[in-house]
């Protein structure tokens, strides 16, 4: 047998025309028509959240007792509420509250849940059992009931709504990330990192965490829809935003007395909530098809 040590394979490195991961994602995502339009809608909402207060035609807090409970007209395109405040202006200003409350609560829950989930899946043993059994206990409560209980303890207010919603997001994230971690830690490159003496922290966050990111992005998006509903429900029940705040849930709550006589007061913020939640869920579905096709049937 004769062996030559010349490196003939070197020639094979013709740089393949391969898209970068971001570009590949973008190309695939554009094909998801519904999700693409939904994401455009979310982009619009984000723009409104930033510039909303400055483009609102009326002061969302200022009552106008000459124009209470008016239906949609050219002057007030979505009508006015019981104090004569312009509903369109209030919805525009409320966008920022809705988006910031929901995203910050989901992100907070995602961060805590991810750390717990990775530790749970990576170390296993008693730590895993403690974290997973505690999540099971949390899962046993209906989400909203748990949130109400937390707000009842902490007192009403938007900050406490954020805490409550993030607390009930933690177990779902922990469980999701634990699953991906169990899968990711079977990779040979994780074993390779162990064999070269990489510390646990490095293995968990440099080698395992990136493997869980795609399913995390999908779940965060889906969860924002849930968080909007939960935050609005808490506000509707009077546990969240104070009534004069232009929060969509609080607006629903204010308008429910006039459901029979001036239904637009409830309808308009209701539609806003509905469209926003729908958009986030559609984007989540689209992202899942692109990023995480194997969880499609779950």
């Amino acid at each position, binding site marked *: *047998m004769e*062996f*030559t*040590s*010349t*490196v*003939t*394979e*070197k020639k*094979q*490195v013709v*740089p*393949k025309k*391969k898209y970068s991961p971001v570009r590949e994602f973008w190309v695939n995502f554009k094909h998801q028509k519904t999700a693409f339009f939904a994401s455009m809608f979310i982009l619009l909402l984000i723009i409104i959240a930033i510039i909303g207060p400055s483009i609102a035609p009326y002061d969302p807090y200022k009552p106008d007792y000459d124009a209470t409970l008016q239906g949609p007209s050219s002057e007030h395109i979505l009508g006015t509420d019981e104090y004569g405040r312009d509903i369109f202006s209030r919805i525009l200003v409320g966008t920022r509250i809705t988006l910031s409350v929901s995203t910050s609560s989901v992100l907070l829950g995602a961060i805590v849940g991810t750390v717990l989930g990775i530790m749970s899946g990576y170390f296993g043993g008693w730590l895993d059992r403690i974290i997973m059994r505690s999540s099971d206990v949390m899962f046993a409560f209906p989400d909203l009931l748990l949130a109400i209980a937390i707000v009842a303890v902490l007192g009403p207010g938007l900050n406490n709504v954020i805490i409550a919603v993030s607390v009930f997001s933690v177990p779902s994230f922990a469980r999701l990330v634990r699953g991906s971690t169990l899968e990711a830690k079977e*990779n*040979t*490159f994780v*074993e*390779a*990192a*162990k*064999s*070269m*003496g*990489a*510390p646990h922290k*490095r293995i968990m966050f440099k*080698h395992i965490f*990136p493997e869980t990111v795609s399913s995390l992005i999908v779940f965060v998006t889906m969860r924002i829809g849930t968080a909007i509903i939960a935050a609005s429900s808490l506000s509707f029940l009077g546990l969240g935003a104070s009534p004069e705040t232009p929060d969509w849930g609080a607006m629903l709550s204010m308008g429910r007395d006039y459901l029979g006589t001036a239904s637009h007061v409830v309808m308009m913020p209701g539609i806003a909530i509905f469209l926003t939640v729908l958009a986030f869920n559609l984007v989540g579905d689209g992202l899942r098809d692109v990023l995480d096709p194997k969880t499609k049937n779950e």
Partner: protein
Amino acid sequence: MSNKLLKVTGIRKSFEIPSGILGKKKILKAVNDVSFEIMEGQTFSLVGESGCGKSTTGRLVSRLLTPSEGEIWIDGEEISQKKESQLKKMRQKVQMIFQDPYASLNPRMKVRDIIAEPLLIHTKLSKLEQQRLVSEILKVVGLNESHADRYAHEFSGGQRQRIGIARALIMKPRLIIADEPVSALDVSIQSQILNLLKDLQSEYNITYLFISHDLSVVEHISDYIGVMYLGTIVESGPKDAIFSNPQHPYTKALLSSVPIPDPKLRKERIILKGDLPSPMNPPAGCPFHTRCPVSMEMCKTIVPKVTQVALDNHFVSCHLMSS
């Protein structure tokens, strides 16, 4: 050349396999009383069919697994029961090369960062200094600096394995555990990688624990060979002794399966009957007696002792030899 770099004595590893909710836990004896030693700068190969425990032995020596029993001495230090925090020094001296060059490199990291990772973990070198070493090592393994900023998936199998070798090499290790490093590669690439490993060995005086199921690969690279069957080494010795004068019936059967590139030459082919017995329920006596063509009555009950064959360092566990 003369000092023992690795000495393994009587290591065992068993795994508990839960069966059902109420069922008794089954014990899988993956490695059962394995001993061997490697001189510095030499290559010791473990051969055997899949499931014989050769990879587990490699993982025990690299302490990815903790042995249930036995001692592992690396460079005069006993490491078999040490905690991860006490293994830092050993982790620098011992590096691994893995079978699958596709799975053993993180797909999200650039080649530069993959190779520099051991430096990042074990040294306090500056980024610049690290990169200088990476470029150096890339040349040593037959790649070049322009490869450093690509991702592993942009390379062919052979090149990936070169990246894996570069990662193992960058700490200037004393011992490299190569777990089937060429079995996932095309035959044409295999010889290149094997020659690279040999060249590196003579240049840096590296010791290899080489794990393979492929006898032609083993013949090319080894100084010493250990033949494993069902978690034990049935025969071990210098390469030439094993290939020219095999003693154990299992080694004979294995060697008879190697094709000879000469159509006129006919040799007797020993074909083993049956499958590898389950390591969860290993046969009593000699582990090989269920498939052995020359099995005797005593083989069913008595475990054969390790006997030295006339030649130096050639050991075999078989009743035919001891009687």
